[in-house]
């Protein structure tokens, strides 16, 4: 007889639907603890520093940055690509894993989608500030104007970015909110007074009728189907900002897949960082179990290996092309004055995650947390290395120069982290950070497949 593969239950500690509602609504209905306040004050302080820096540089001009005529992009675009990349894991978890019927996603999809939205907001700020005159931002849209009308240049990857990021943000927000509606109704039905009125408006009058659920599942599937190619398109388009230029080190066809995988890699590292913090501070250990952490670790080690392959491919092609400019760009990247950036990137992105092959490392939450932070750092450096080491020494040696960020640029980067974490902490406090209805559905499906089904049914009958 064939052996049946018995998977252990995903949520062994989940006993009843009532318990799920209670556990996930608890952080919303109680006063936040000391850990939350500590994190919030730190994040809000970083945000305040960022606001001061951005205000100063808008009042003064982009000359407050360390950019020069050779290095025209540095921190700003590095941060932009970094934050867009972070967002990609949210879409991957909510859309791709939904289509692939990976049920473990239900515990983390809500917060990963929220992370996507906040990360895209952070990303969008950088091109906006870089415009120098951010109050004219609407010039990037093709609208009828009195200059001709002079339309935007549809052949430019920078314009594709506007459409890709704009669509990505809109669809992610809609997808996230539609998923939230039933859970907002759950919060509404437990609340009283003003709180109830607010959630009544936010939940759009959701009543959980079978027909509504049927359409809800259908629209989730449609949005997932649309978001899957969308997420691939977004970072591919971002990569063409570089790949369509003629600069050695940028002008490579491997960029779109390389960027997409890098985005998923960095995003999963950020999800892991946030989930490890959240499950401790908000006490969601029953929902974000070791199995979830293991699954994310495996994604991390897999994508890390692909990223390593991409780095190797770039180096190989530079050598194999026999193009002296291409070869110089990579020699300079590895051993030039900014070579340290390359080695930080390799150590953090390719070497450190390989430790996750070991089961003992995956069980060690401190080690997993450390590796996730290293990947965040490494992926920021990846974008910095691509942008700055390619720019600072290109075709014309007389134009070679170096780049050093100013305090304003560092403050702005810090501010973007402040914005991201402030938004995320407010989200944890005011909205259900785990999808209540989806968890119940997974738990019901598990109990109907296992031998404990009658026991569980009895239990809920008694309740």
């Amino acid at each position, binding site marked *: 007889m064939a052996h049946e593969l018995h998977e252990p239950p995903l949520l062994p500690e989940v006993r009843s639907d009532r318990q799920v509602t209670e556990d996930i609504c608890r952080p919303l209905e109680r006063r936040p603890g000391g850990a939350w306040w500590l994190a919030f004050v730190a994040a809000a302080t970083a945000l305040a520093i960022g606001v001061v820096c951005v205000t100063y540089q808008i009042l003064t001009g982009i000359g407050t940055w360390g950019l020069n005529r050779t290095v025209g992009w540095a921190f700003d675009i590095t941060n932009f690509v970094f934050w867009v990349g972070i967002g990609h894991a949210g879409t991957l978890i909510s859309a791709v894993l939904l289509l692939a019927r990976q049920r473990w996603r239900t515990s983390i999809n809500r917060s990963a989608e929220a992370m996507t939205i906040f990360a895209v907001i952070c990303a969008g700020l950088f091109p906006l500030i870089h415009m120098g005159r951010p109050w004219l931002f609407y010039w990037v849209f093709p609208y009828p104007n009195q200059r001709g009308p002079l*339309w935007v240049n549809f052949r430019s990857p920078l314009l594709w970015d506007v459409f890709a990021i704009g669509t990505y943000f809109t669809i992610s927000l809609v997808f996230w909110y539609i998923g939230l509606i039933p859970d907002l109704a759950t919060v509404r039905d437990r609340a009283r007074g003003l709180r109830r009125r607010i959630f009544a408006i936010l939940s759009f009058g959701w009543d959980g009728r079978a027909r509504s659920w049927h359409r*809800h599942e259908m629209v989730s599937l449609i949005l997932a189907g649309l978001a899957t190619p969308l997420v691939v398109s977004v970072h591919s388009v971002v990569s063409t900002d570089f790949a369509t230029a003629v600069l050695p080190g940028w002008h490579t066809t491997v960029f779109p897949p390389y960027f997409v995988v890098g985005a998923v890699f960095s995003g999963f590292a950020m999800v892991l960082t946030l989930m490890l913090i959240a499950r401790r501070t908000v006490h969601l250990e029953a929902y974000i179990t070791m199995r979830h952490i293991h699954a994310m670790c495996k994604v991390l080690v897999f994508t890390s290996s692909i990223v390593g392959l991409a780095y190797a491919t770039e180096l190989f092609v530079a050598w194999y092309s026999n193009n002296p400019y291409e070869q110089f760009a990579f020699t300079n990247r590895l051993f030039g004055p900014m070579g340290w950036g390359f080695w930080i990137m390799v150590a953090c992105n390719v070497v450190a995650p390989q430790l996750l092959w070991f089961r003992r490392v995956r069980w060690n939450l401190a080690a997993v947390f450390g590796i996730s932070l290293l990947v965040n750092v490494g992926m920021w450096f990846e974008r910095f290395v691509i942008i700055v080491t390619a720019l600072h020494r290109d075709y014309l040696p007389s134009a070679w120069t170096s780049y050093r960020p100013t305090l304003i640029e560092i403050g702005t980067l810090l501010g973007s982290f402040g914005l991201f974490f402030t938004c995320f902490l407010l989200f944890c406090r005011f909205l259900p950070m785990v999808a209540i209805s989806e968890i119940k559905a997974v738990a019901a499906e598990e109990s109907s497949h296992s031998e404990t089904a009658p026991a569980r049914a009895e239990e809920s009958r008694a309740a």
Partner: protein
Amino acid sequence: MTAMAKRYHLAIFPGAAAFLQAARECRARGLDLREAWTPFPVHGLDELLGIRRSRLPWVTLVAGALGAAGGLAFQYWASAEDYPLDVGGKPWDSFLAFVPVTFEMLVLLGGLASAAAFLLRSRLWPGRKEVLPDPAVSDDAFALLLEAGAAWTDEEIHALLRRHGAREIRIECRP
């Protein structure tokens, strides 16, 4: 009550398994299941209630096609007809360069139209007042609405529902 109002039986169940078993037996015995309210999508319920497959994908298809066609046409018109700009000697009708924006418009319009169709069709919008058969249907209660046929007495229906663990049964008259 008007003469048109019909009598319905509303049963509240405390668990998904009991609820689904009750719904199955009611259906098998020829009772007319009219509506159900649940805290999460219960699989197998759609067939019992006779819910036909949603036509939302058609909205996505039409809106997506319109988005893509409109996006491509506008780019061509703006770049080649209305104000031709020479960018690096590229041809006016450089369609390859128009692919990304065309695709994004497909996704944007298709997604927004599907979401809007879902909300309108399910009658969900800010300020709409919810009508719940039981305050716990968003927590752990499952509600089933049956139409009483002539072949059944109230006692028989209620006994069947109780046997499956219904914690509350009401008779409702609805138009």
